C-alpha cells in the first residue's frame, strides 16, 4: 500500500500537464452560500487568489493539483498512463485531509481535482465528489475548487459537481473528432466531451435561474437588491457581457484544455475555431493550451515536442478574442497558408494587415474598437483615452499617451499625433511606399 507521500509524488507528477492558472472567484457574500454559514467556513475566495509558490519555470503553484487515481481504462497515446507502472488512488478522506493540511500551512489556495478513469467515469467521479463533499461539509472548506470532469460522466453527477465547485472543466484535447481519434481513439468526441460541455452550460443556467427565483421570494432581504445592482453594474461595464450571468453557482464557469501538437496535422486555425465555438455556444470562460511533450514509453514517445512558442501564440490569439472581443475572421487574415499563426505577436500582424487599408489612428477621434487595433493599446488604456476625451482633453503629444499607459514603442507606427506619424522600416517595405518612390524618381524629384 503506497504512502500518502508516494501518492502525491506519483499522482502529482501525472497531473503536471494539466493546466490551471486561476484561483480568482467572483463569489461574494451577497450570494447565497452553498456550503453553510460563510462566517464559519474556511477559505476565502471572494478576492483574487494569491500565489504562494512558483515552480522553477515561473508558473504559479497555487492549487493542490494531483490526480485522484492514475488507473485508467483509456489508452490515450500522449498520456503517461502507458508508461507509469505505479498505479494508485487516494481515498476521499486521505485526499481531503492532505489538502487541509497544506491549506493550513498557507502554501495552496484551493483544489484542482482531476483523475484518470478507473472502472467507469461515474465510479471515479463518485469518489472524487466524495472527497470534495468531505472538504465542503466536514472540513468546512468554502474556498476555491476546480473540478475536472471525466469524459462520459453522467448528467446527475455533473449536477453534483457543479453544486460543489467554483470551476469545472472538460478536456477537449483536440479540435475535431478526427484529431481526437488520432490521439485517443477510445474517446467519443461528440458524446463523451461536447455533449458534456453542453450539459454543463444547461445545468448551470437552469440552476442559477432557480436560485435567483428563490432569492426573489426573499424580497424583504436587502441581499437581493444588492445582488441585482451588482449584476446590473457588471453588465453595464461590458464585463464578460455574454459569459457572466451573475451566477450564484459555478461562478468561475467552465473551461477546457487542448493538447497542442499531438495530432499530426492539427493547425492553430482548427484550435481557434473550436475555441470560438466554445465561447459562443457553451459559455466557455477560457481555454488552456498545453504544448505536447513526449513521454517516454508512450506511443507518441518518439514524436517531436511542440514548440512552446506555438502555445504562446495561441494564448495571445485567445486573449484577443476573449478580452479584446476580436472576431475570428479578424485573426483569419494573419493565419499562414498552413493554417498556423505566424511568428511574432498576432496583434502586430493584424495591425499591419489592417493599417494597409486604413489610415493611422488619431487618438483624439478614433473609436474604442479602432484604438484596440493599435498594438500597445489595450482595453484599459483605450478606455482611459475615451474617458479623457469625454472630459475635453486633447492628446497633442506622445507623452500624453504614455501617461495613460500606452506602450509607445509598439503603438508609434500606427498613431497620428498632432498630424504626425512615425515612419518605420516597415513603411519602406510597404508596396504603396515603393510605388510612390518609383513615381517620384521617374518624375525626377
Amino acid at each position, binding site marked *: 500500500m503506497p504512502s500518502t507521500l508516494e501518492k502525491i509524488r506519483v499522482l*502529482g507528477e501525472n497531473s503536471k500537464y494539466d493546466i490551471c492558472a486561476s484561483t480568482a472567484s467572483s463569489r461574494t457574500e451577497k450570494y447565497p452560500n452553498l456550503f453553510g454559514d460563510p462566517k464559519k467556513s474556511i477559505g476565502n475566495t471572494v478576492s483574487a487568489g*494569491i500565489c504562494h*509558490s512558483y515552480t522553477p*519555470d515561473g508558473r504559479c503553484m497555487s492549487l493542490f493539483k494531483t490526480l485522484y487515481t492514475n488507473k485508467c481504462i483509456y489508452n490515450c497515446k500522449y498520456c503517461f498512463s502507458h508508461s507509469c507502472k505505479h498505479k494508485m488512488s487516494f481515498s476521499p478522506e486521505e485526499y481531503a485531509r492532505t489538502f487541509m493540511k497544506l491549506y493550513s*500551512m498557507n502554501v495552496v489556495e484551493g483544489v484542482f481535482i482531476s483523475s484518470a478513469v478507473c472502472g467507469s467515469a461515474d465510479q471515479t467521479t463518485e469518489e472524487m465528489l466524495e472527497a470534495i463533499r468531505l472538504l465542503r461539509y466536514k472540513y468546512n472548506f468554502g474556498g476555491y475548487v476546480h473540478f475536472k470532469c471525466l469524459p462520459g460522466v453522467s448528467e446527475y453527477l455533473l449536477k453534483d459537481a457543479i453544486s460543489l465547485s467554483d470551476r469545472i472543466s472538460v478536456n477537449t484535447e483536440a479540435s475535431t473528432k478526427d484529431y481526437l481519434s488520432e490521439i485517443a481513439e477510445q474517446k467519443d468526441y461528440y458524446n463523451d466531451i461536447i455533449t458534456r460541455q453542453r450539459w454543463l452550460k444547461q445545468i448551470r443556467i437552469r440552476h442559477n435561474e432557480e436560485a435567483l427565483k428563490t432569492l426573489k421570494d426573499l424580497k424583504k432581504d436587502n441581499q437581493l437588491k444588492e445582488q441585482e445592482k451588482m449584476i446590473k453594474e457588471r453588465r453595464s461595464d461590458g464585463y464578460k457581457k455574454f459569459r457572466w450571468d451573475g451566477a450564484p453557482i459555478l461562478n468561475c464557469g467552465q473551461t477546457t484544455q487542448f493538447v497542442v501538437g499531438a495530432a499530426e496535422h492539427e493547425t492553430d486555425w482548427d484550435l481557434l475555431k473550436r475555441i470560438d465555438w466554445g465561447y459562443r455556444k457553451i459559455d466557455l470562460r477560457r481555454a488552456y493550451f498545453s504544448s505536447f511533450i513526449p513521454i517516454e514509453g508512450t506511443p507518441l514517445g518518439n514524436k517531436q515536442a511542440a514548440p512552446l512558442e506555438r502555445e504562446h501564440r495561441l494564448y495571445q490569439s485567445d486573449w484577443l478574442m476573449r478580452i479584446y472581443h476580436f472576431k475570428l475572421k479578424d485573426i483569419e487574415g494573419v493565419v499562414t497558408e498552413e493554417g498556423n499563426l505566424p511568428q511574432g505577436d498576432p496583434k502586430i500582424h493584424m495591425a499591419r494587415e489592417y493599417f494597409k487599408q486604413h489610415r493611422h489612428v488619431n487618438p483624439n477621434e478614433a473609436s474604442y474598437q479602432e484604438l484596440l487595433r493599435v498594438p500597445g493599446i489595450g482595453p484599459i488604456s483605450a478606455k482611459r483615452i475615451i474617458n479623457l476625451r469625454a472630459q475635453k482633453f486633447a492628446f497633442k503629444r506622445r507623452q500624453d499617451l504614455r501617461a495613460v499607459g500606452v506602450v509607445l514603442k509598439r503603438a508609434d507606427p500606427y498613431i497620428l499625433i498632432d498630424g504626425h506619424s512615425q515612419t518605420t522600416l516597415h513603411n519602406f517595405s510597404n508596396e504603396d511606399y515603393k510605388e510612390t518612390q518609383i513615381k517620384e524618381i521617374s518624375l525626377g524629384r
Partner: protein
Amino acid sequence: MTKIKDPLEVIGRSKGYSHEELLKNLHRHSSYSPAIKRQIITIPEAILRNSGTQMAKKINRMMREIFTEAYRAKQFTRTEINNRGVLLGVVSLKHNVIDLVLIYFHERWPECVICLYNEQTRDTWVIDEKGAIREFHQSLGEVVEKISIDRRKVPYFEDIQFSGEEIFETLYKSQFITERENKQYFKKMIPDQCYELPGMKNGVEKHFRNKKLNDFL
C-alpha cells in the same frame, strides 16, 4: 522666471494613489513623519499620481514598499494550526502592516484565532474570531499556549495534526516540468529578498534557484 510645469505631463488618472489613500496608508511606513503628511496635502493629486516631483516620487515609493511587504507576507508566511483552532506563524515586517496580514488570515480562518510573531519588533499580534486585534510583548509560544487553554479541541483540526513540510516538498517537486524550466522567470516571481522571509528561509523553492554543479556535467 521659473518655468511652469506642463499640467498635461501628469495627466494619467489611473496611476498612483489618491490623497485619501495616501493619508490612510502612508503612516504605516517605517520612515513616515508628520511632515510628510503636511506635504501630501499641498501637492496636487495629478502630480502625486504621476510622481511629478521628487517628493511625489518618494511618496509613491513608500506606498509601494508598504503594499509589497504586506503582499509578500500574505504570500510567503508559512503557518500551522493546532488542534484548538489557533493558527500561528512568523512574519518579518518592517512597516506597520501587521493588521493587513492578520485580516487576510482572519478571512481565511474566521473561526480561528490567528497569532503572528513579528521578528522585527519581537511582538506577537493576535486577531480573534470577532476580528479584534491585540498586541502581546511575549513570545509566540507563550501567547499560543495562553490562548489555547481556554479553547475546545476541534475534531477536524485534530485530523490534520501531522507534519506537512514533506508533503508540500513532494507536491512541489512533482509539478516541475523540466522542458519548461525558466530560471529567469522563476527568479522574477520569487526575488532574492523573499528568501529572507521567515517562511521561505528553508523553503523548497530555494533548492531550485540555482543550477547545481551536476547539472553542467
